[in-house]
């Protein structure tokens, strides 16, 4: 009798939603598969050379970047999270969201801003020479180095650690901390013996996001001249025109990422365990007085200045010098390009996210588990790796479709898809699907399954239920997903740089192009637009969090 159980299961599960999400998942998987297959292909001569002389250096440089940034973001992010969550001090409320603002500034913009500010002709040294009459040694200003890159990454990525850890402190640690306080432990002891060990999964969750961002980066390392894995992929691809070796490098990097990804998942599992066992009463804050209060406030002020105020003010000054030259018809075209490619990508992405999330919540099975893992995987594949995979897939599409193109009168052997905007949109969807998906999933979790079940018992199938009941209830979550992905797409650099059609510029690629042409001052205008979009998203996100907690 059990032999027919699969038939019954199919009757219950098979529907258009499932089919679409299966196809979507498979298509999204193609580029990564293409890359991983590269590991098993026979290497060419060039690879011998790369392996012998370069691979170890690439790997080491990337490793130092990740380790250095990881350690510092944990130190700063966790300290700030603890201060904001457990103490009351001057300007605390302002800081609690100001610490998120650095996320609005893409690290590559910060890199050329700081790089230029600290150069011999930059504002810092000019001020010292002309106003203070002091000409210090150049070696103190060498930000275009490994240390400088770690500084930039730390200052603009620590909010990931800060955000996740703070919400853990605020929501889940209260009973443990209060118990420790009642048991007479001093604050330092509580922090190191109770808070840190407890929040380890949250911290690891945040720091793995930081690691993914560092490995994804192209702009900072390129501008500072650091040979990381990602810049090596670019060099091999565009410098040596050796796509096979570039794919092989990408495959190596991807294996490492999968490793990091699996570790992060394991740690997340523990986090879930923590959440379900502790009471969720908020932590009551202790008021700091005197010197400690001002020290906390001062520390916050230094961080906000370095990670937001100083670079933004500098960009505003530069923009004031150059906006007349930059803001012209060409710039309007940049805006239109950025908005249109974002809008198209967001529509495709959110459709996919909503379908996958709806399938995932209705029937939990091994398939839906794999589906959700695949979706969150896209975010951890570095842009350079993903873009090679996407390009390879699209070129092979074009080869397959060559006959069709001929029949349509476009000419045999033409590259149609791989020269079009579709390729970039496809890559955005894969990379940022997790962002939209998580927002939609949170919306579904908040509304629960009750209304959907009621609707189905009243005679509506999955699709009509979705439009009549689910969608009206989760539209806020869908809007959140749109805004967050919009911010990600507007500031995205490596994918856009590699996969855009010929002569198609966005705000991000233009800012990068100005910066790499040593026109740093001109770069400030598109950069400020990108930061503006980021700030709107950060404010919106913060507002939403406040609204939810009320």
């Amino acid at each position, binding site marked *: 009798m059990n032999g*027919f159980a699969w038939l019954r299961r199919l009757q219950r599960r098979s529907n258009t939603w499932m089919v679409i999400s299966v196809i979507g998942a498979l298509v999204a998987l193609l580029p990564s598969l293409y890359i991983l297959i590269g590991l098993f292909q026979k290497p060419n001569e060039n690879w011998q050379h790369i392996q012998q002389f370069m691979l170890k250096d690439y790997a080491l440089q990337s490793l130092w970047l990740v380790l250095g940034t990881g350690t510092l973001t944990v130190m700063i992010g966790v300290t700030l999270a603890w201060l904001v969550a457990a103490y009351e001090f001057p300007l605390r409320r302002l800081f609690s969201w100001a610490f998120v603002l650095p996320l609005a500034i893409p690290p590559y913009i910060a890199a050329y801003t700081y790089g230029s500010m600290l150069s011999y002709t930059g504002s810092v040294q000019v001020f010292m020479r002309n106003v203070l009459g002091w000409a210090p040694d150049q070696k103190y200003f060498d930000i275009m180095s490994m240390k400088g890159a770690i500084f930039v990454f730390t200052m603009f990525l620590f909010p990931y650690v800060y955000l996740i850890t703070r919400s853990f402190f605020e929501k889940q640690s209260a009973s443990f901390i209060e118990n420790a306080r009642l048991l007479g432990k001093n604050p330092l002891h509580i922090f190191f013996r109770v808070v840190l060990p407890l929040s380890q999964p949250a911290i690891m969750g945040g720091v793995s996001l930081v690691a993914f961002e560092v490995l994804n980066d192209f702009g900072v390392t390129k501008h500072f001249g650091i040979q990381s894995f990602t810049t090596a992929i670019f060099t091999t691809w565009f410098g040596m025109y050796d796509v096979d070796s570039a794919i092989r490098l990408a495959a190596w990097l991807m294996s490492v990422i999968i490793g990091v990804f699996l570790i992060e998942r394991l740690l997340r599992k523990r986090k879930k365990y923590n959440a379900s066992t502790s009471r969720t009463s908020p932590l009551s804050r202790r008021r700091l007085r005197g010197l400690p209060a001002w020290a906390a406030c001062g520390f916050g002020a230094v961080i906000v200045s370095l990670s937001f105020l100083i670079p933004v003010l500098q960009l505003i000054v530069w923009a004031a010098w150059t906006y007349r030259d930059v803001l012209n018809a060409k710039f309007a075209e940049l805006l239109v390009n950025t908005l249109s490619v974002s809008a198209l990508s967001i529509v495709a992405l959110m459709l996919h996210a909503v379908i996958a999330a709806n399938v995932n919540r209705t029937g939990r099975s091994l398939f839906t588990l794999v589906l959700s893992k695949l979706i969150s995987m896209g975010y951890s594949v570095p842009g350079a790796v993903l873009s090679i995979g996407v390009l390879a897939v699209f070129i092979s599409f074009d080869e397959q479709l060559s006959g069709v193109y001929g029949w349509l009168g476009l000419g045999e052997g033409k590259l149609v898809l791989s020269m079009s905007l579709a390729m970039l949109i496809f890559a955005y969807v894969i990379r940022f699907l997790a962002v939209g998906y998580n927002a939609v999933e949170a919306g579904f979790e908040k509304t629960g399954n*009750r209304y959907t079940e009621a*609707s*189905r018992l*009243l005679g*509506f199938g999955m699709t009509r239920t979705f439009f009549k009941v689910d969608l009206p*209830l989760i539209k806020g979550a869908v809007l959140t997903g749109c805004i967050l992905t919009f911010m990600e797409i507007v500031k995205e650099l490596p994918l856009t740089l590699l996969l855009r059609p010929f002569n198609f510029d966005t705000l991000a690629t233009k800012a990068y192009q100005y910066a790499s042409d040593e026109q740093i001052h001109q770069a400030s205008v598109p950069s400020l637009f990108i930061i503006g979009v980021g700030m709107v998203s950060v404010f919106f996100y913060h507002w939403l969090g406040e609204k939810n907690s009320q």
Partner: protein
Amino acid sequence: MTFFEMSDVSFHYDKGSRTVLRRFSLGLDKGESVGVLGQSGCGKSTLLRLISGLEEPVTGRIVIDGTTMVDARKFVNPELRGVGMVFQDYGLFPHLTVEQNIAFGLHRLSKKNRAARLGEMLELVKLQDYRRRYPHELSGGQQQRVAFARALAPEPALLLMDEPFSNLDANLRGEIRSELRQLLRAAEMTSILVTHDKEDADAICDRIVYMQANDEISQERNSS
């Protein structure tokens, strides 16, 4: 003749987890009202979710009015079973008004018939004056009546009620129980009421079934 029959139904949530139901059987005649009594966690709510098709049993068979809803090789989706359910927390759509909630399941009727049926239901639960209110603007008792009207409006073959009184004040309960009994009788509705409160079942049902956690045997008893 048996109108509703479930035989040898077993169920557990995930592979390897505790069995919630083991070879459970239950039969109802047309127009009969049965109360299922048991402590929380014994699988009462799961029973209703299995009957309505929100969950899929591991083994067993469920037949409603001569149509097999689920057996080893067949599974009918919940929207095609013609089963009405009143949820413990009512599950009224928060974005729809009272009349939109009640008319929700009437999509198969013509516009004219739909309006007529809606009017009937509003009258039945005495909520004509509240038709344009949203669920959060109603009292608990009113919400519960909307939930009943919504479940009964499409004339289901079988009505399932999951602890429908648990959110009501004690002084409201008595009144609503007797109203409900009359309502079910008038509609000749076959129904299953799940509750932990024996008084609820005594007041409404023709027969009571006791359920115990992990128990394969169900005791039956005729109430007065």
